[in-house]
């Protein structure tokens, strides 16, 4: 067969193979088989008396072209809808022999990640603030789908699934380490431990995993690059929504809060516990620190805790913590406690940071403001009385105390001011916006 005819046949086959969506490792195989057919048929027709050129033309015509064969090849290799759509879930053309346990563990871990990713998607969709939900939900959802596809790809002997699974596991390990090392106390991260065990198993079973990896199916370079870029971008973008400002939510500038403190000392002769021994102290006095905080909302949040939580499900808090200078000398103040005055506005503990509870534990007074009360244009006055017993001569020279007044809007930001007795101040943003 002359070179021109052979080139013609090869070009015909190359055109078919190029449009058939074949896995790279199968392309040469299929091309050789198809070319063998054309060469044999052409030779047969030449033997029947046709010129080589005519024989090649007829062989090509009988064989069929791109439109006849390419769709059949594509459907043969992309037998599932999702596979043909994504073009990445093809079972490996040569399945690696045997799957090492660490690879199976990696697939399982990636699958579990996908499961929790799906749950996370639901939680974000229903609990995040509107703009953040809109941004984060697709990212969480896509990441969960990608993890699930990667799980299937690992089981199908595909390398890209392994690499995505590895990436997910490393991220899981880092997140687990971050969780275990941040904050007070010891936190055990089960996901972090599972990730560490899996990665160690992969490292220990190096040879087996290496063999599986070498035999695993590869995506065409452009598709692999696209998957890699997508994973990187979706990871970065997935982290972003929590940091983005949400214009549907109010900021410190949307709230005006003022506080006024008045103090008075009243005689309170009676039994006091001085130096651990109960005795009658005729000079004992009681310091009453009254604080009145007024909060005005110029605007309110639109679904501050997501669409699944109504206004009754959250609240703000105003905290009052007296700073009695002599208290630092530990002697004159025997007790400091809030005395109930005014209105208790409801639950606050689940909506505001833990440090608010700490302030209450330190002798402060915390008043909750139920979310149902918070309306644009409304004003609420919160009163608090902190009472201290003052005993002995030290109390004679007590400096005027001050009260640290803090207003927390959920766990997002805090307005505060330190107000001395007889003064009034406006609470200001400390840059605590979250």
């Amino acid at each position, binding site marked *: 067969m002359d070179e021109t005819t052979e080139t013609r046949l090869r070009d015909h086959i190359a055109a*078919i193979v190029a449009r*058939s969506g074949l896995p790279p490792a*199968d392309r040469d*195989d*299929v091309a*050789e*088989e*198809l*070319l*063998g*057919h054309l*060469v*044999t*048929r052409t030779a047969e027709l030449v033997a029947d008396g046709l010129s080589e050129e005519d024989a090649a033309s007829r062989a090509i015509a*009988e*064989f*069929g*072209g791109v439109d*006849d*064969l390419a769709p*059949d*090849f594509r*459907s*043969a*290799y992309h*037998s599932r809808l999702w596979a043909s759509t994504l073009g990445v879930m093809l*079972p490996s053309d040569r399945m690696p022999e045997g799957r090492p346990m660490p690879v199976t563990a990696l697939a399982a871990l990636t699958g579990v990640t996908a499961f929790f990713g799906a749950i996370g998607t639901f939680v974000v969709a229903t609990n995040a603030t509107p703009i953040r939900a809109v941004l984060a939900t697709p990212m969480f959802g896509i990441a969960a789908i990608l993890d699930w596809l990667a799980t299937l790809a690992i089981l199908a002997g595909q390398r890209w699934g392994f690499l995505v699974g590895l990436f997910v596991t490393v991220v899981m390990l880092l997140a687990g380490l971050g969780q275990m090392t941040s904050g007070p106390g010891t936190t055990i991260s089960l996901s972090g431990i599972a990730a560490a065990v899996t990665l160690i198993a992969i490292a220990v079973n190096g040879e087996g995993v290496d063999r599986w990896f070498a035999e695993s199916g590869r995506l065409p370079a452009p598709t692999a690059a696209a998957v890699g870029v997508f994973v990187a971008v979706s990871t970065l973008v997935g982290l972003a929504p929590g940091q983005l400002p949400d214009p549907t939510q109010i900021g410190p500038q949307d709230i005006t809060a003022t506080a006024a403190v008045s103090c008075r000392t009243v005689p309170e002769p009676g039994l006091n516990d001085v130096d651990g021994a109960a005795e009658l102290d005729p000079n004992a006095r009681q310091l009453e620190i009254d604080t009145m905080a007024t909060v005005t909302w110029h605007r309110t949040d639109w679904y501050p805790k997501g669409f699944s939580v109504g206004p009754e499900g959250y609240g703000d808090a105003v905290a009052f913590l007296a700073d009695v200078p002599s208290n630092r000398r530990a002697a004159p103040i025997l007790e400091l406690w809030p005395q109930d005055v005014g209105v208790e506005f409801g639950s606050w503990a689940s909506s505001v940071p833990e440090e608010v509870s700490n302030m209450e534990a330190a002798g402060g007074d915390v008043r909750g403001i139920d979310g149902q009360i918070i309306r644009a244009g409304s004003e609420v006055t919160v009163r608090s009385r902190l009472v201290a017993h003052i005993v002995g001569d030290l109390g004679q020279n007590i400096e005027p105390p001050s009260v640290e007044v803090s207003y927390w809007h959920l766990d997002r930001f805090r307005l505060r001011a330190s107000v001395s007795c007889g003064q009034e101040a406006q609470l200001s943003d400390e840059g605590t916006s979250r």
Partner: protein
Amino acid sequence: MTTAERYLESLGNRDLREEQTLPVQLGRGDLSLLLLGLIAEREMYGYELVAGLRERSGTVLDLPEGTVYPALRRLERQGLIAGRWVDSGDKPRRRYYRLTQDGEQALATGRAAWRRFVAATDAVLGR
């Protein structure tokens, strides 16, 4: 579209008085079954299978020869046949296919289904 529907469609598009034989467009399932039937006889390569189809069906089965190859790859990926390359001297290498155990079972099931179809068609058209 089933084979019967395709056949009836081909009837509808042709003048029966002018046609002695009617080419039938094979569907994927039909072609796969025919290939399984041929490979069941002995190990064969693609060109042989095309020749076998042409030889045994005359001009009735109408398909571009190349379409046999995607069908073979599909059957191989389904585990119904297994292929292996065999050198043939100065000629191009040949990829021979043999039936697997699953392929034998699929062929038996396919044959039974085809015969039920033919029997039902005969019952309607009369012999």
